[in-house]
């Protein structure tokens, strides 16, 4: 048995997911080639290891070596190592609060002479392992409040430290574990509420308060219609609210001659209608009706507090949100980065300007072009076709991770694979999305493309452990035959 196990767990076994490895290697190669273009300087053609692309090449070498080590370690050890890894990385993060150096306003870096490390990048890996470990325990259920609290603690601790480091960008990434948690059965209402909150938050900048109330009431009515498969009641309700509010508003305006806003009449009508609806629902024994009442009241309260939430953000965060939403536009100041980034990508056209021919990146119009805005070089030099190819490779990688997770025999591997898929998805969405003005600017790297050793190594470890776990399960399947 021991002999067979040792033989089967070898990397030469043949059950390695070569698709994932291939896609990852292609992305790494494209990433480096693209980084070379981003920092390319015509006046210095000789290869220099001190340059960013030289340093990145060293990091790629280190990462591939680490990947080999990971592949050689038995998959069972990751169950055992999950907690130690989590705790060690968390300690490193805490030590940055004391010994760390500040880069771009975030005190998140540790300086080891020639190398700088950003422990936060490895925290994703640590959290993914820790969550997999904690959630694969027998009897664990995400619906159970105590278990949910554990999950919140595992994620919440590093996020708390990141807020202390003023590294909000890295903290946002931990929302990516919601991807895995959904698969593991987290209550879908949490997602619905989160979705509604985001829509209302961003919506409140676009539409007037009257429109927002209409949207909320209409949304609840539609949700009611779907839930109970009846459309008469919500239509009658909406019609009567509209009729009553407009009639009262018109009467007051015309007869009393007082110019009160329609908003208040709509709000009052909705408020009065609530007890009536609750009473009717109670009479008809609709037990789930309270959800809609809660949603409605909650949304109203949330909308009235968005101002407060928004004001609590830093000025640059506020401005980034307003720029993305198109509420404000000042391409010379707050919107400079995104505007220049959009110019670079937009000027790429269908086929791009050609390798090393991107004028906007070459002449430094785009700031942070080797790190956060690396996607600009892709868009400008490789055009629409190249950008879509890169995005499709990421999409394939994520799909592969989902597929790998689904074929795991153990919860540990599935949870881990889904976590990795979520992390990659969020990074690609935010990083590529912000360069084309789809998402507010949040400074997080594009996997395998952005310059930076910590993130490159962290993404490699995240991915390779998933492949190693997948191989382990393949091993089991093979031994069963």
């Amino acid at each position, binding site marked *: 048995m021991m002999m067979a196990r040792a033989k089967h767990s070898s990397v030469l076994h043949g059950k390695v997911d070569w698709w994932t490895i291939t896609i990852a290697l292609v992305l790494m190669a494209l990433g480096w080639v693209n980084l070379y273009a981003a920092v390319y300087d*015509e006046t210095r053609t000789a290869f220099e290891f001190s340059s960013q692309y030289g340093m990145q090449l060293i990091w790629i070498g280190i990462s591939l070596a680490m990947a080999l080590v990971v592949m050689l370690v038995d998959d069972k050890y990751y169950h055992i190592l999950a907690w130690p890894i989590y705790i060690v990385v968390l300690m490193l993060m805490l030590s940055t609060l004391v010994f760390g150096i500040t880069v771009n306003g975030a005190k998140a870096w540790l300086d080891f002479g020639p190398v700088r490390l950003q422990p936060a990048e490895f925290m994703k890996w640590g959290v993914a392992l820790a969550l997999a470990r904690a959630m694969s325990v027998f009897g664990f259920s995400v619906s159970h409040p105590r278990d949910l609290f554990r999950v919140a603690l595992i994620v919440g601790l590093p996020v708390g430290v990141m807020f202390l480091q003023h590294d909000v960008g890295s903290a946002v990434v931990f929302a990516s574990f919601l*991807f895995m948690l*959904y*698969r593991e*059965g987290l209550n879908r209402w949490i997602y619905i509420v989160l979705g509604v909150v985001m829509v209302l938050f961003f919506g409140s900048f676009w539409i007037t308060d009257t429109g927002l109330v209409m949207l909320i009431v209409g949304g609840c009515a539609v949700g009611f219609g779907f839930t109970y498969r009846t459309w008469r009641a919500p239509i009658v309700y909406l019609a009567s609210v509209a009729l009553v509010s407009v009639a009262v508003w018109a009467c007051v305006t015309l007869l009393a001659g007082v110019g009160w806003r329609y908003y208040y009449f709509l709000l009052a009508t909705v408020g009065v209608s609530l007890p009536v609806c609750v009473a009717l629902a109670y009479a008809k024994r609709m037990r789930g009706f309270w959800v809609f009442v809660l949603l409605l009241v909650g949304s109203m309260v949330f909308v009235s507090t968005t101002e407060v939430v928004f004001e609590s953000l830093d000025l640059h965060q506020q401005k980034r949100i307003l720029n993305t939403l198109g509420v404000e536009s000042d391409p010379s100041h707050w919107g400079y980065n995104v505007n*220049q980034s*959009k*110019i*670079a*990508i*937009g*000027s*790429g*056209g*269908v086929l791009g300007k050609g390798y090393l021919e991107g*004028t*906007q990146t*070459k*002449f*430094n*119009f785009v700031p942070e072009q080797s790190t956060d805005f690396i996607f600009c070089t892709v*868009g400008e030099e490789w*055009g*629409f076709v190249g*950008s*879509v190819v890169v*995005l*499709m490779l*990421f*999409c394939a990688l*994520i*799909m592969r991770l*989902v597929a790998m997770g*689904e074929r795991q025999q153990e919860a540990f591997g599935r949870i881990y694979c*889904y976590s990795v*898929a979520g992390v990659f*998805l969020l990074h*690609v*969405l935010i990083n*590529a*999305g912000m360069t*084309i*003005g*789809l998402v507010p600017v949040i400074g997080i790297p594009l996997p395998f493309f952005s310059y930076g050793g910590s993130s490159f190594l962290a993404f490699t470890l995240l991915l390779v452990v998933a492949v190693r776990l997948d191989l382990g399960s393949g091993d089991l399947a093979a031994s069963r035959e």
Partner: protein
Amino acid sequence: MKRDFMRQRVLLIFVGLVFAALVARLFHIQIVDGSYKQAASNNTLRYEVLYPPRGEVFDRNGEYIIQSKEAYDLMVVPRDVIKGFDTVLLCRIVDVPLPRMRSQLERAAAYSGRRPSVVVPQLSKETKLLLDELRLPGFYTVYRTVRSYPRKIAGNLLGFVGEVDGRDLARDDYYRSGDYIGRTGIEQAYEHYLRGEKGVKINMVDVGGVVQGAWQNGRLDTQAVAGRSLTASIDAGLQAFTEELLAGKVGAVVAIEPSTGEILVMASGPSYDPDEMVGRDRGTNYARLANDNRRPMFNRAVQSHQPPGSTFKVLNALIGLQEGVLKPNYKYECYGGYNSGRVHVGCHDHFSPVDLNQAIMTSCNTYFCHVLRNIMDEPEHGGSASRGGYDHWAEHVRTFGLGRKLDSDFTGEQSGNIYGSDYYNKTYRGSWNSLTVISLAIGQGEILSSPLQMANFASTIANRGHYFIPHVIKSIEGAEMDQKFYEPHHTDVSPEHFEAVIEGMWMAANTEAGTVFGRGYVPGLDICGKTGTAENPHGQDHSVFMGFAPRNDPRIAVYVYIENGGFGASTAVPIGSLVIEKYLTGATTRPDRVDYVKARKINYPNYDNRPAI
């Protein structure tokens, strides 16, 4: 398990939606919306204009009269300037006072921090080399050409260049702010040939505005094409000599080569050194010239017009001969003037009676009063001036290029004036006759002509009945001259009638009784001439001379008009004969005449006593 499957599906759909949104957005900004491509070129492309050297002008003997000298503009890019650099040293090198340098730099900074502005224009090459050595960050020099007028003559003829204004920019998109354009004279008339074609060099710049190389390896760049050089018909030496003679006088001299219509001399007095309109003192010089009461920037040779005086009698004689109302042997008696009814036209003292030749020679007023009346009262043209006689006469006059623009290559030509009969009908309410307009017989009255027109008239007589449109440019490098300058314009007086009046003009200059003889006789040159003394109600009469030489095969026709110069013989005749002699023989044999002309002081109370403008 089914629930897990559903959840997996939802997640995959979510992943799909995220990537679909990214691709859709990319599709929009990279393919649908073209504005980003424009924004990218605005970011990176800088168009640098390459200025062509302006075309140069030679005189008819191949001597430079307008040259393009290299010059350098000192430019500044304010944000590259290091604070606290040695401003005083810079001021000393470029020779600009410190306060002016400061204000220039402030103005440049206010215009743009990144774009270059001119700080000091038109520096010499030596200054440029000094500046290159100094290597001040933020400063550099660019090549421009600047005009130079080596002979320092003919300011009004050559003209000057000036910076373009809003109207030029609106009219012609060749010009950009700060460019130069010909403002007067040849510089203006031949601007289109002289300016050349600007080139453009498209550079790529980085975010700091620093040039990073040529766009597309310079494939779209164009070279500047130098302006075409022109050969003027002017004789620079003769022009300079004429201007010397004109010094201190107000008037004009125009000389034409009759066989071609080429203008040999076009002098206007007072004149100015065209080099004064170049360089840094241009502003003050311009103000001084513009405020001068004698108006040196007014080109009297083409822009002024006056009654031609007695020189016009020749034309009346020609029309009389053509109409058959005058024969060379017709004699009229003259005792101190012409009298008819209440009209009296005075005449000076000379023998009587005179025939045509003698009338021209002595410039007898009475004779030409008879001639004019005979023309206008001719029975076959209504029998009266007001019934067609006048118009018939005016028709003849106009074929000599009077009363209208000659359509020369010169800008600002004055058309002169020959009224139609409608003017007299209106003024005299229909009741007028040849006696009413009797002043026209002796070139006075309502008739006005420019010196250029009268020189052309002299040329027409020399040619025995035709002229070529006078022009100042003989040929253009690499381009055809307008064909109109090669077509003869025939008058409606037959060539055979000219010999009679030419005989009179010859006698005037070559026999002792002639009006030209005293100060205009040059042995062997066969000068034919006619004096004029144009009446001036405001002061001294204007002195006029019209002539050509030699009599057979004429090579030069001259018209001289000196304001307040007195009798034609006293000022205009010596000037005219000296110009003819100088041109035909290359020298003058009568130094006393040259000294006489130069020493002759004429007062111009009507100019000089006017309050300054």
